[in-house]
Structure formats: C-alpha cells, structure tokens
C-alpha cells in the first residue's frame, strides 16, 4: 500500500479549507437567488417549450419536440406576427438606444453642477423613473387620447391655431409605435441620466484644468475630456438600453395590447399573450427562449465591438 503525503502541511491545508468554506457560505444566498429565479425558470421554459400542456384540463402533458419552434418560422399566420414583433423590437431599439443615450448624456451634462434650480431639474428628470409603468401608461393614455379632447391633440391644435387635425395616436398603424417609443424614452431617460452623472463625477477635474491651461475651448473640453471620460459609462448604458428595448412589454400591454394590426406588438408581448391569453404555454415559452438567445447573441456582439477600457 502506498501512502501519499501532501506537500501542504496539515494546518495550512485546514486553513485554506476553512477560508474557502467561509467564502462559499457567503456565496450561498446569491447562488440560491440565481438558481431559483433565473436558472430554474429558464430551464423550465425550455422544458415547457418542448411540451404541450393545456392548462386547467386533465389531458396529459405530452412531448412535441421542436414543434413550437418550427411553428414560429413556418406557420403562415404565426410567422407573420412573430416577424412583425421582431421588426417592431428592432425599430424600437434602433430609435430608443441612440436617442435615449444621447438625451441622457445631454441632460446629465446639463445638470452636473450645483444650485437649487439644477437640483430641481435633476429631480424632475428622474421622476418618471420612480413612477410605476401602470401610472405612466395611464397618464400617457390621457395625453394620447383620440379626438379633439385628447391632451396632445388639443395642445397641438392650440399651437397651430386650429390647423392640426386630431390624431388617433395609439390607434393609427403609423403613429402607435412612435407614440410608444416617445413614452418609453420619456420614462427611461432619467435613469440613464443618473448613470451618466455618476460617470461625469468620475472624470478628474484636473483633466479639465489641464486642457483649459492648454487653451481648450468648451467644445474641446467636451470632445477631448468629457466624451472619452464617459466611454465606459456609454457602453454600459447602450448595452442595458438594448436589452431593455428587446424586452419591452409593459407599455405595449397597457396601452395598445400589440395593436393596431400588430403594429406595436413586441416579442415579449407576443410571448406573454400566447402563454396567458391564448393559453398556449408551450408556444409562449418557445418565444421567450428564442428571445433569450437573441439578447445573448446581441450582447456578446456588442461586447466584442465596444470593449470597455481599464485605465
């Protein structure tokens, strides 16, 4: 029999073990949360997307393989709705990401100073973030209400001296998605402004001072100090906004239910309405799995293209 002796002394080994045990113990709450709220639901979705379950009936659950996935791309009607939703998400992201990021940066620079009025503005810009989406949607429903009594219609009538024809903002195929986009930007900009504010605070004042002494103008300061200093913040904001854009649901559900004619349907909305309205849980699950992979893929691509820099 061969006896193995360890090169690490007994006591030291015990110490390492104790330390890693403490570390692991501390990790447990985090791991439990991730497993319970992320991993289990995800794999359950995958399982659901491969099975048929008629909720509330006693028909036994049965496996259908990739039926629901095939459905997405081959079913003549369903395919149309799915692709339209995907397209809406694409348009939504293409508009919201740059506009919201730019606007948030602009507002952050505007309010990145002291003073009572500035503080008031800062709070005001952030306010929509703390409103629940349900409340926001109710307010915007009133703003975008059809007919001459709708707030936006009435206001536009006043400023155009009555020349403006009242629009059915949420009921018009061409106006519904833009309306939702505007509302989303209004709601989301404040949060990103705060992130940009934090980024601005991280730029050392000596960088501005050095540039000033070198004879830089305001524009130079922005181009050569502020903008590069916000690089990592911007990358973060762009990635997060992209992910949010692909997951847009609340506004659609509360304001238009995907209508008119699927003009505002989003992939997330489609998934939820399939699962809970059409009682087609497997189909809903399949859509959310596909969406997860799309988001994962886009995030990976963005990460490759926009590398953060550590200085």
């Amino acid at each position: 029999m061969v006896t193995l002796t360890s090169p690490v002394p007994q006591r030291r080994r015990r110490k390492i073990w104790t330390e890693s045990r403490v570390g692991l113990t501390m990790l447990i709450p985090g791991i439990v949360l991730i497993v319970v709220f992320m991993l289990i639901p995800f794999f359950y979705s995958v399982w659901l997307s491969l099975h048929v379950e008629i909720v509330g009936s006693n028909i036994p659950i049965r496996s259908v393989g990739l039926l629901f996935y095939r459905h997405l791309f081959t079913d003549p009607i369903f395919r149309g709705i799915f692709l339209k939703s995907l397209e809406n998400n694409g348009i939504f992201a293409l508009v919201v990401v740059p506009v919201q990021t730019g606007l948030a940066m602009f507002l952050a620079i505007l309010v990145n100073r002291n003073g009572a009025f500035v503080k008031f503005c800062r709070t005001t810009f952030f306010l929509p973030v703390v409103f629940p989406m349900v409340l926001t949607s109710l307010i915007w429903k009133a703003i975008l209400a059809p007919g001459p009594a709708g707030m936006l219609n009435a206001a536009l009538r006043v400023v155009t001296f009555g020349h403006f024809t009242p629009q059915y903002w949420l009921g018009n195929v061409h106006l519904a998605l833009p309306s939702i986009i505007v509302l989303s930007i209004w709601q989301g900009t404040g949060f990103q402004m705060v992130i940009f504010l934090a980024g601005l605070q991280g730029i050392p004042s000596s960088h501005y001072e050095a540039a000033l002494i070198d004879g830089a103008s305001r524009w130079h300061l922005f181009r050569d100090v502020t903008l590069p200093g916000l690089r990592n913040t911007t990358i973060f904001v762009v990635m997060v906004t992209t992910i949010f854009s692909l997951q847009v649901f609340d506004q659609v559900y509360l304001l238009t239910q995907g209508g008119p004619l699927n003009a505002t349907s989003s992939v997330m909305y489609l998934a939820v309405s399939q699962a809970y309205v059409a009682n087609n849980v497997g189909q809903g699950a399949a859509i959310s799995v596909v969406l997860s992979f799309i988001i994962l893929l886009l995030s990976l691509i963005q990460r490759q293209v926009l590398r953060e820099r550590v200085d």
Partner: protein
Amino acid sequence: MSEIVLRDVSKIYDNGYHAIHNIDLEVKEGEFMVVVGPSGCGKSTLLRMVAGLETISDGEISIGGEVVNDLTPGERDLAMVFQNYALYPHMTVEKNIGYSLRLRKLPKEEIKRRVAEAAEILSLTEYLSQRPGRLSGGQRQRVAMGRAIVREPKAFLMDEPLSNLDAKLRVQMRSEILQIQRRVGVATLYVTHDQVEAMTMGDRVTVLRAGVLQQCDTAQALYDRPRNVFVASFVGSPSMNLLYAELGPDGTSLRVGSQNLEVPDTLFAQRPNLRAYLGRELVVGIRPEDLTMAGDGQTLVGRVGHIEALGSELIVHFGLDARNYVVEDKGGSAEEAEELLEETALTQHVRNVARVAPRSSVVTGDQVPFRVSMERAHFFDLASGNAIW
C-alpha cells in the same frame, strides 16, 4: 521667457474663508521657486491663481510684464504639471504631449518635430505610441513634463508633481525635473509640502503658513536665519529643538529648565536686539547637529530615549526638564500631523533630538551631557514668534 510677479495678492472665498493674505512674490526669469508649507496653507490655491484656475480677490498677477488677472488659463501661456499628472487616458503619449500644439493648430510637421524633441529629452521616444495606462508612475510623470515643455511656455507651474511616486523615484525625478528646467530656462513655480524637496530643488524657497508668506529666501538662508519660529521648525529634518528659556538679568546666563548655560558676549554682538530680553522669558532654538557628545563647553544634560542608528550618524531623542515650545500647524500631511501627535503622546518629555557621530557610546536611559554651540543657537520672541536679531 519671462518672470512671474505677484503684488499684494489675496484670495477670499465666497464663504468668507481667507485663503491667501496679501502675498508679494517674484519668480525671476529662469528661476526655480518652490512654495512650501503644511497642507491647507494655501500653496496650491496660490499656484492655481497664477494658472487662472482660481480668481483672485485682490492684487495683481503679471507674467512677463503683462497683468493676467483677467486672462483665461489658456491665454496666459503657462504649462502646468498636476499631482495626478492629468494625462488623457484615451490618447497615446504622442497625442498627450502634442495636445496643446494641436489646439493651437500648428502644422502637423512641426507638432511631430517638437513632440519628438520633447520625447528625446525625456527618454520617452519608445513609448510614444502607448497609452498612459500602460506606463509606470515615473514614465507618466515624464509625459506630464513633456506636455509642459513642448509648449515652450512663458512659465512652468508644478503642483506637487512628485508626491505620487515612491521615495526612490522621487529623488531621481527631482534632479530630472531640475535638469529639464535648467535646460528650458523658464520661470518655475513649484508647490510641495515636503520641505526636503523644497530645500533641495528651489533656487529660492517660499514658506507659506495659513495663507501668509513667512519667508522667501535661498534654502541655506532659511536654514541659517529663519525669520520666525515657524520657519525654524518647518525647515530642517529632524527639526530644530525649541525650548522655553530665560535670559539672566545680566546677560551672562541662559536658564533652560533647571540648567544654566553660559552666554558668550559675542552673541549680543551678533544679535543686538537680544539685550532687550534680559531677565525675560524667550524661546531658544538649537538645531540637532548643534548638540554634540564630544568635546567640552556648555552642556545640557538630558535623559536618552529612543536612538535611531542611521549608519552615518545617530539620531538621539532625549528629554530635558525644560518645557518644549510647540509650533502648531507644522506637520506636512494630515497623517504626518497625526503621527507627530502620537509620537508626542508616547514620548512625553523626550522631544529633543541630537544628531551625534556614529558609534557614540550612548544607551537608552542614560543621563548624557550634550554640548551646545551657543553661537549657533536661535532666539525667538515668545509672543510674536519672530526671530531676535
């Protein structure tokens, strides 16, 4: 090339804080002027006022004969080196150095030539295409210097440029900065809290305390003839021993605690004003190197505490039964002040220091006579703290 002149310059902040009190200062063409003082003494504010990064409340600053009070920092044609170097992280070393030239829209060829020249002087040529993030502290420091010299400015301003470097590199960079300054020959205002740095680098040194200029002179003059007790204690390391003492009514003896020192007549010739202090209490200052263990003459007997053997000499801490005069607000950084306080609490009466020859036979706990060179002692007025000459 030009000189920097401050005339009666004051700074009062909006909240009423009086940071700088009526300062007159002149940095001559090509001169290396160091402003030194404890943290919070206003030295950085002074520098930033010259740079135009702070407004001045009163007085006049001129550079090269031109009053610059109302000029923007960019219009003053100065170069400044910051404590954290303030290099642009997204630009290469080459772009960093050439930034000011690009702002001034100089021809590309000339920018390239001047950047290359600066890089050559600072041995940065091989790093030109790298970003500052990849450089060591010393290299970043050089890039910051490069950014300053490439401008060929009217004057250099440096705000504690060496305090982020480790001790060894700091000593090396001191001489590098001096060499470059000599080479460029531009008036330089250099701020530091480190009195050793100030003494070793400055053609002249200005000591600042609580926004008030204490003394401006060469390092040797500050050391030999400090104008007041603050300068005396701030300049020199270890710092001067300061003790309460009483001059005898006939002027032949000085009472320090329970001990008496004979006062030579020559002292009154050197310091005529000392006669006014006959029979009065004053502060006597003795530099650590003016206390020796060998030879005969006047001695002060003290109890030896801690001994630091530095090889070339021994730093002997000892206690006397005389009261020590404490200069407030003397320390460098906040941590140093804290350290000093702790040290004081620990050693109680062991607050005096002598620098004696190495291998002297001295043991902790001994009662040792320290020979005092009276003709090299300093005397200060108790109330004003001013030197008595």
